[in-house]
């Protein structure tokens, strides 16, 4: 018997937003009947906001619960916000999933990605050469190199067994286990190489921060009528000032921490901290 959380039990017993949206704006699919689970996700939009979401799932209790909670998580969100949801977020929202069931949350994430792809266009994984990203690694479950790479990255996976739990890859005939091991090694070697790179000088860091704020952060905030100014860098403390609608917004702390800081950590230096002044 699986050790399912109360939330998983609640959601498989009383799944929310079951069904089909007849005139859906976006539809995402993941999995297949042959593989034992499949999910269809329907989204209704108003501008770039998700105003309704429904799902149909063929799968076990945790697959239904993952789909159900995903619809709850995305209704009311903008597409940009929904795009940031990972399988980890789905699993966390459910109060955790058994390790062997993590692939259910991954399927939810894949269906969402599939739906959003129709809006944003194909996402390109910058880490992988174009010709290998879509290569099927696990033929039993049709899992691509890209999917495995993403699962490793988001969930910090270190072993083949973990990759199997999260993506199903390697879970049937097992012939691709060697390739999965190679992908894991490539990913982690790359992380080590990045970490060993010469640290940026203060000037380089400031230039890079300015560029990221200007090109990636500011345009997002402007959409909501706000903006951001880069004031100073003190060691690893990035001092910024929110302006426009962002100024005095009760969610400004959240914006700084979950949005601004996470992008800067990702793009510039993982030791950066953002402070509002």
């Amino acid at each position, binding site marked *: 018997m699986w050790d399912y959380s109360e939330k998983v039990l609640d959601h*498989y*017993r009383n*799944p929310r937003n*079951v*069904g*089909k949206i007849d005139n859906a704006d976006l539809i995402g699919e993941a999995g297949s*009947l*042959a593989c*034992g*689970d*499949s*999910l*269809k996700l329907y989204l209704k939009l108003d501008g770039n906001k998700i105003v309704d979401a429904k799902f*149909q*799932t*063929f*799968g*076990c*209790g*945790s*697959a*239904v619960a993952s789909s159900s909670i995903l619809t709850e998580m995305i209704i009311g969100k903008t597409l940009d916000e929904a795009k940031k949801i990972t399988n980890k977020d789905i699993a966390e929202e459910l109060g955790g999933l058994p390790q*062997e*069931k993590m*692939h259910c949350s991954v399927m939810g994430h894949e269906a969402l990605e599939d739906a959003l792809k129709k809006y944003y266009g194909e996402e390109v994984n910058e880490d992988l050469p174009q010709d290998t990203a879509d290569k099927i690694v696990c033929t039993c*479950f049709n899992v691509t190199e890209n999917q495995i790479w993403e699962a490793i990255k988001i969930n910090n996976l270190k072993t083949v067994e973990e990759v*199997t739990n999260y993506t*199903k890859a390697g*879970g*049937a005939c097992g012939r691709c286990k060697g390739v999965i091991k190679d992908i894991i090694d490539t990913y982690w070697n790359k992380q080590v190489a990045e970490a060993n790179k010469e640290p940026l000088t203060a000037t380089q860091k400031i230039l890079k921060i300015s560029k990221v704020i200007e090109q990636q952060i500011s345009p997002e905030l402007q959409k909501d009528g706000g903006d951001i100014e880069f004031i100073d860098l003190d060691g690893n403390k990035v001092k910024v000032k929110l302006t426009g609608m962002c100024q005095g917004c009760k969610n400004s702390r959240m914006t700084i921490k979950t949005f601004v800081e996470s992008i800067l950590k990702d793009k510039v230096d993982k030791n950066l901290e953002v402070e509002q002044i």
Partner: protein
Amino acid sequence: MIYLDNNATTATDKKVLDEMLPYLSEEYANPSSMYDFAKKPASAIREARAKMRDFFGAKDEKEIFFTSCGSESANMAIKGVLNCNKEKRHIITTQVEHPCVLNTYKFYEKQGYEVDYIGVNAQGELDVEELKSKLRKDTALVSVMWANNETGVIHPVEEIAEYVKSHSPETRVYVDGVQAAGKIPMAVKDTLIDMVGVSGHKFHAPKGIGALYVKPDVRLTPLINGGHQERGMRAGTENVPYIVGMGKAAELALENMNHELTEVKRLRDKLEAGILKNVFNARLNTGITNRVPNTTNIGFEYVEGELILLHLSDIGVCASSGSACTSGSLEPSHVLRAMGIPFTALHGSIRFSLSRFTTEKDVDFVIQNMPIIMDKLTKISPFQCELEELRKRKGF
């Protein structure tokens, strides 16, 4: 609670427990000891062995060895035979064996043994002709389960043993009898089968006790070396209370054999027919008559098995599924796949297995509730068009 998972394990019969209790408390002597206090446990083991002899339909109680479980019985038989016949390196078994047997052969395959896995047809019946064609002079072992745990299909083990002995007398025949024990009579003395393994908890004894029947001329090496217990074939102080319990359970199983073959079968047939009649997406995975009387395996198309089990559990019904999700492995049942059950029903296959404690009320409750659960669960399925077509085709 309605317990319809008796092929997984059974409730310990109260009468079995009562027989065991003295040996868990006051009668604690080691049966090998030389004082009067040890007489009772020693004679209790002798009695249990005699009961097991009758249970197997064997000639002599010397043919019975006590083990700790079905898996140990299988390992003792298989490894014991292969160790004694090192020059023979070919094995024939089936694709639908229990993992305790299958994985033991996989282990030998890695050691360089050649293993043929015989397939089954869509009804789960063994391809006996294929099995016969694979028999060779260097075949050490032919190993076929008496009844399959998932489908209940009975394999013609007597016929297979006769063929093997007439064509290759030195080849040994092991029959995994775990799912036949207590459900159909096993008169091993009238057959040419060399060894049969059983597990107590499948016929209302507690977990942790099994037995192996071995024909007198079969040479085995022991799995556990040590003392003289079980005539040196299985060392370790005898598990007296559990041996006594299994003896009692075997006696009760024989007493109830007729009930099993008639009443349990009637309830199984009623459950099977009731579900097929009431549930539009139900599909019988095998309907042959030659099945153990307590088992049915039904596929529910376009719905996943674990989800069905969880909803059954919510209304107090225990069953099991061949779906991938229930096992923690990612692949659905190897038995149903060997039968070529279509994907639409494979992942939603549910096994109901009854016992002599199953009541008419239990069966009626499941027949009534299955359509309600299926109504709810088919609504979640993304295969609405296919389900609609199925509904029309079946006239629902």
